[in-house]
C-alpha cells in the first residue's frame, strides 16, 4: 500500500548526511527569506502579475539572469569544494569528501554550469536583446517563451532535489557515460535525477530555440535583410539552429537510458545485447555541438563590443558571419574526437581529427575580423572591452590546446587528463562566461537605466583573470604530468599536490572576482543618480536596441523602425532620428499556463524518479489539460491604442524627469567619480547603520 502511494520514497530518503542537511537548510532559509520579504512588502500579487506570469521577453530575460546567476554561485561553490578536496588528499590523507560524494559534486558542477548557468544566461540575453535588435516587439510565441523558462526552472529544482529527497546525485561525470550510468553500476536514484533534470531543461531549450528561430526569420523590421542583422543576432540564429538540430538527439538518448533503467531494456547495458559504445556516440553527437551553441552568441557579443568600443563598424562582416555559420556547420562533424581512445580504426580517428582542425579555421577568421575592427579605431577600455581582451588571450590558449588534442596520437596521452579539463575551461570560461560578462556589462545600462561602476569593474576583471591563471595554468601542467581528471586522491610521490594547492588558491581569487562583480552592481545603484543613462544610448551604439529608452518600454518601439542599412541605428543617427509616432499595438496577455505545465512536468519527472505511478499518470494528464486549455483559448491578446501609447510615453518622460529632480541619498562619499572599494565600504556601513536605526528603511520604502 505504501509503495502504491509513495513509490520508492521512504524515511531514508530524507536528508541525513552533512551535505544534504546543509544544502536543504540553505535552500529553506533562502526560500524563507524570500517569503518573509514578499509578505512584509505585500508584493505577492505584484510578483505574480508583473514577473512570474509575464510573457515580456525582457522580464523573462531578467528572470533567466537571476536564476542563472544564482546557479553560477551554486556551481562555483561545487568547484571550490572540488579544489579543496584535491588540495588536501595527497598520499595517506583522504580529504574531507568520500570518493562517491566527490564524484557527485563534479557531475553536478558540470551539469549546472552547462545547462543551468550558461544556457540560462545566454537565453536571457537572446530573449532581451534579439527582439530589440531586429526591431520586433516580442518573440514569435510569447506562450512558448514562458513555457520554456519555467521548464528550465523545473530542471533547476530537479537538479537540486536530491538535497531534500534521496541524498544522492549521479556520480558518473556530467554526461553519465554508459554502462556506468546503467542500473548495474549506478543502482541509486542519482542518475534518474540526472536524466530528468536534463530532460525537462532540454525540452524547454528546444522550445525556446524554435521560438527564437521563428522570431529571427519571420519578425525582422521591414528592410532588415539577413545580411543587415547585427552579429549578436547572427550568432544567436546559428546557435539556435544548432539547438533544434542536436537537442532532439539528447532527448532521444535520455529516453533510451531512462528505458534501460526503468523498463529493463537493453540499449546500453553490458548484457542482453546492449551497446554502451552507442551511448558514447549519441551523447557526444549532442555534446560537442552544445559547446558551440554556447559560444556562438558570445562571439556575436564580442563582435558588437569590439565594434562599439573601437568606434568603427565591424570589419569583414561577411567573413565574420560566414565564420559563425562555418563553426555551426562543422561542429556537427567532429564528435568522435571526444573518444579517440575508445578504439576506432586509424582511418576513423584521422578523419575526425582532420574535421576538428577544420573548425579552427572559421574561429581564426573571427579573431582576425576583431583585430581588423580595432585597427585604426579609437579604443575605449570600458568593462566590456576588458572582458574581450581577457577572452581573446585565454580562448586562444584553450583553442591551441584543442588543436593538440585533435591529433589522435597526442590525444592518447592527453585524453581525460587535467590538460583536457584546462582546455575546455579555457574555452568555456574565457569564451562563454567572459562573453556573458561582456554582454551584461555592455547592456547593463539598457536593462537597468544605470551605467556600471567602471573602477570596481576593473578590479573584478583583474581578480577573475588572475584567479583563472592561478587555477588553470597549473592544470595544464598537471595534465603533462599524467594527472587524470576526476581523481579524489593521489600518491604524494607524484608531486602533484603543490599544483592542486595553487588551483585552490586560484579558485578563492575567482570567488573574490565574483564578489567584486556583485559589489560593482550594488555600487552602481548606490551612485545611480550619477550613472543614470538618460539617452538610452550610453556607448554611441550602432544597433537598434540603443534606439529605445533605458530600460525600454514593454512594447520596445512605439513604431517599428524602417531599416535601410547594416548598423541600423547608427545610420538612423546620421540621417537624424525620426520624430516619435504612435500606432495601435497588440500586446500578449500574461499567462500562468507556462508555470502550471512546468509544475506538472516536474511532478511527472519526480514520479518517474521515485516510481510513483499515480503521480506520473495524474501529472501527464495535468500537462495535457493545461496545454489544451491554453492552446484552445483564443483570447490571449489585448490592444493598446495609439492614444494610450502616447500617454504611456508622456508618463514615462515625466517619471524620468521627476527621478532626476529627486535628492540623491546622502552616502557620505565623493560622488564626482566612480566609487572605489574604500568608498563602497564606507557607504555600505552608513547604509547599514541607518537601516539598523530604522530610519532609512522607512524612507526607502516610501520612495518606492
Amino acid at each position, binding site marked *: 500500500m505504501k509503495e502504491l502511494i509513495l513509490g520508492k520514497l521512504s524515511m531514508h530518503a530524507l536528508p541525513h548526511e552533512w551535505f544534504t542537511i546543509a544544502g536543504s537548510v540553505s535552500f529553506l532559509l533562502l526560500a524563507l527569506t524570500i517569503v518573509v520579504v514578499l509578505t512584509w512588502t505585500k508584493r505577492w500579487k505584484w510578483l505574480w502579475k508583473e514577473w512570474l506570469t509575464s510573457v515580456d521577453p525582457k522580464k523573462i530575460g531578467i528572470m533567466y539572469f537571476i536564476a542563472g546567476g544564482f546557479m553560477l554561485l551554486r556551481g562555483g561553490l561545487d568547484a571550490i569544494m572540488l579544489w579543496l578536496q584535491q588540495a588536501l588528499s595527497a598520499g595517506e590523507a583522504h580529504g574531507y569528501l568520500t570518493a562517491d560524494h566527490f564524484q557527485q559534486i563534479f557531475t553536478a558542477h558540470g551539469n549546472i554550469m552547462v545547462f543551468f548557468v550558461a544556457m540560462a544566461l545566454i537565453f536571457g540575453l537572446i530573449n532581451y536583446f534579439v527582439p530589440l535588435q531586429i526591431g520586433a516587439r516580442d518573440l514569435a510565441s510569447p506562450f512558448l517563451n514562458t513555457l520554456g523558462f519555467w521548464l528550465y526552472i523545473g530542471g533547476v529544482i530537479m537538479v537540486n532535489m536530491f538535497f531534500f529527497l534521496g541524498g544522492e546525485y549521479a556520480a558518473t561525470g556530467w554526461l553519465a557515460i554508459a554502462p556506468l550510468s546503467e542500473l548495474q553500476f549506478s543502482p541509486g536514484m542519482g542518475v534518474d535525477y540526472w536524466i530528468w533534470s536534463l530532460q525537462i531543461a532540454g525540452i524547454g531549450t528546444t522550445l525556446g530555440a524554435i521560438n527564437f528561430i521563428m522570431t529571427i526569420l519571420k519578425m525582422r523590421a521591414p528592410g532588415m535583410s539577413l545580411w543587415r542583422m547585427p552579429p549578436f543576432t547572427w550568432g544567436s540564429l546559428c546557435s539556435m539552429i544548432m539547438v533544434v538540430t542536436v537537442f532532439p538527439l539528447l532527448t532521444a538518448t535520455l529516453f533510451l537510458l531512462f528505458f534501460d533503467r526503468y523498463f529493463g531494456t537493453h540499449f546500453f547495458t553490458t548484457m542482453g545485447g546492449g551497446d554502451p559504445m552507442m551511448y558514447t556516440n549519441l551523447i557526444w553527437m549532442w555534446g560537442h555541438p552544445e559547446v558551440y551553441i554556447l559560444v556562438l552568441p558570445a562571439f556575436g557579443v564580442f563582435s558588437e563590443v569590439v565594434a562599439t568600443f573601437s568606434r568603427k563598424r565591424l570589419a569583414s562582416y561577411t567573413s565574420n558571419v560566414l565564420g559563425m555559420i562555418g563553426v555551426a556547420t562543422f561542429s556537427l562533424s567532429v564528435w568522435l574526437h571526444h573518444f579517440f581512445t575508445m578504439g576506432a580504426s586509424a582511418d576513423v580517428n584521422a578523419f575526425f581529427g582532420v574535421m576538428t582542425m577544420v573548425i579552427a579555421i572559421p574561429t581564426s577568421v573571427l579573431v582576425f575580423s576583431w583585430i581588423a575592427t*580595432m*585597427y585604426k579605431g579609437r579604443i575605449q577600455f570600458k568593462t566590456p572591452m576588458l572582458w574581450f581582451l581577457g577572452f581573446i588571450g585565454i580562448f586562444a590558449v584553450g583553442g591551441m590546446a584543442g588543436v593538440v588534442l585533435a591529433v589522435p596520437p597526442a590525444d592518447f596521452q592527453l585524453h*581525460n587528463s587535467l590538460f583536457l579539463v584546462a582546455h575546455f575551461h579555457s574555452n568555456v570560461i574565457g569564451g562563454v562566461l567572459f562573453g556573458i560578462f561582456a554582454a551584461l556589462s555592455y547592456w547593463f545600462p539598457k536593462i537597468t537605466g544605470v551605467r556600471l561602476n567602471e573602477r570596481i569593474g576593473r578590479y573584478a576583471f583583474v581578480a577573475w583573470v*588572475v584567479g583563472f591563471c592561478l587555477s588553470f595554468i597549473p592544470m595544464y601542467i598537471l595534465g603533462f*604530468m599524467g594527472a587524470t581528471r576526476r*581523481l579524489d586522491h593521489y600518491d604524494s610521490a607524484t608531486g602533484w599536490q603543490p599544483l592542486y594547492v595553487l588551483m585552490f588558491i586560484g579558485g578563492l581569487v575567482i570567488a573574490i572576482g565574483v564578489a567584486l562583480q556583485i559589489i560593482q552592481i550594488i555600487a552602481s545603484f548606490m551612485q545611480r543618480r550619477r550613472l543614470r543613462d538618460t539617452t538610452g544610448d550610453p556607448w554611441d551604439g550602432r544597433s537598434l536596441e540603443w534606439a529605445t529608452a533605458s530600460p525600454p518600454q514593454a512594447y520596445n518601439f512605439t513604431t517599428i523602425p524602417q531599416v535601410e542599412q547594416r548598423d541600423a541605428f547608427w545610420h538612423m543617427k546620421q540621417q537624424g532620428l525620426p520624430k516619435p509616432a504612435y500606432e495601435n499595438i497588440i500586446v500578449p496577455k500574461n499567462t500562468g499556463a507556462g508555470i502550471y505545465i512546468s509544475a506538472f512536468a516536474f511532478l511527472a519527472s519526480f514520479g518517474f524518479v521515485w516510481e510513483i505511478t499515480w503521480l506520473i499518470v495524474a501529472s501527464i494528464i495535468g500537462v495535457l489539460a493545461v496545454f489544451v486549455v491554453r492552446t484552445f483559448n483564443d483570447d490571449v491578446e489585448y490592444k493598446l491604442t495609439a492614444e494610450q501609447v502616447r500617454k504611456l510615453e508622456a508618463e514615462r518622460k515625466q517619471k524620468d524627469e521627476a527621478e532626476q529632480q529627486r535628492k540623491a541619498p546622502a552616502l557620505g562619499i565623493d560622488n564626482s567619480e566612480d566609487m572605489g572599494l574604500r568608498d563602497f565600504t564606507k557607504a555600505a556601513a552608513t547604509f547599514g547603520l541607518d537601516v539598523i536605526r530604522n530610519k532609512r528603511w522607512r524612507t526607502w520604502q516610501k520612495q518606492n
Partner: protein
Amino acid sequence: MGKNRKKNGWSTAGPILLVLAGLAVLITLLLRDTNVALFNSKGLIADEQQSLMLLTVGIMLILGIPAVCLIYFTAWRYRESNTRPARNPNAGHGKLLNASMWLVPGAIALVLAMILWPATHHLAPQKQIAAEAKPLTIQVVALRWKWLFIYPEQKIATVNYVQVPVGTPVTFELTADEAPMSSFWIPNLGGMLYAMTGHVNRLNLLATVPGDYPGSSAEINGAGFAGMKFTASATSKETFDQWVRDVSLTAKTMDGTEYDKLLKPSENNPSELYSLLENDLYDKVVMKYMGSHEAHTDGAHH
C-alpha cells in the same frame, strides 16, 4: 576621470602580467624532481607521441603567437589616449585582407592535417610494433577496481602489477568484466586505450628504458576509480625471464574460483602474483558478453 586615465592600462595589465611571471617561476621550481610523464618518455610510442605534440604546438605557435601579440598590440596602440597614429573609421576592409583571413589559418590547418593523417596511422594502437625481439602478448581485464594481467604463453597472472622486458614489443589485449568502461594507461610508455566488456582492444607498446612506471585507469568507472592504479615494471630480458619462472612456481593459482573472488568490487588492491591454472580464462571473460553476434575485436589493420 583624468586622474584615473593614465593608470588604466598598467593598473589592469600589471597585476596579471606579474602573476603570470610569478607562476612561471613557481611552477618551474615545483617541477624539479617530478615525473612529468608526457615529456619523460621511456617507451617508443611515448617518444613519438611526445615529438608529435611538440611539433603540433610548434606549428600552431607560428600563427598563434603573432596573432595574440597582434591583438594586444593593436588594442594598446589604438587606445583612445594615444593620439599619434592616424585613425580611419573605414580601415580594416578589403578583399585581400578577407582572403588572407581565411587562407592563412587554412594553410596552417592543411599542414597540421597532413601531419595528422600519417601520424595517426603510424601510431595506431592496434598496429604491431616491428622489432627484433619476439612479441609478447599480455591479456588485461579491467575489474572493479583493479587490473588483472594474464600472460597466456608464460602461464602466469598478476593483479595491479605488470612486468615487461625492455626492447620487446608488447601487445596488451584489453577487455573488462563486470566493470564500466575503463582506460588502460601507462603514460611513460605511451597513450591509453579503453578496456570494455565484450570487446578486445589491442594496445601495442615497447619500453626502451628500464624502470618502474605508474599506470592507472583514466576513465571514471565508479567509486574506486582513483585507487585503480598499477605499476608497470620494465626490466632486462634476463630479469624478466627469471621473474616469469619465479612467479610460475607460486602456490597461488589463478583459476575460476580465484577469479570470482576478484570479480567482487574492492579498492586499492595490493599487487598479487599467480600461476595460471585455467588457460582459457580470458576467452571465457570475453565470450560472457557475446550475444548471437560475433566477438567484437577492434578494427585492426595488421
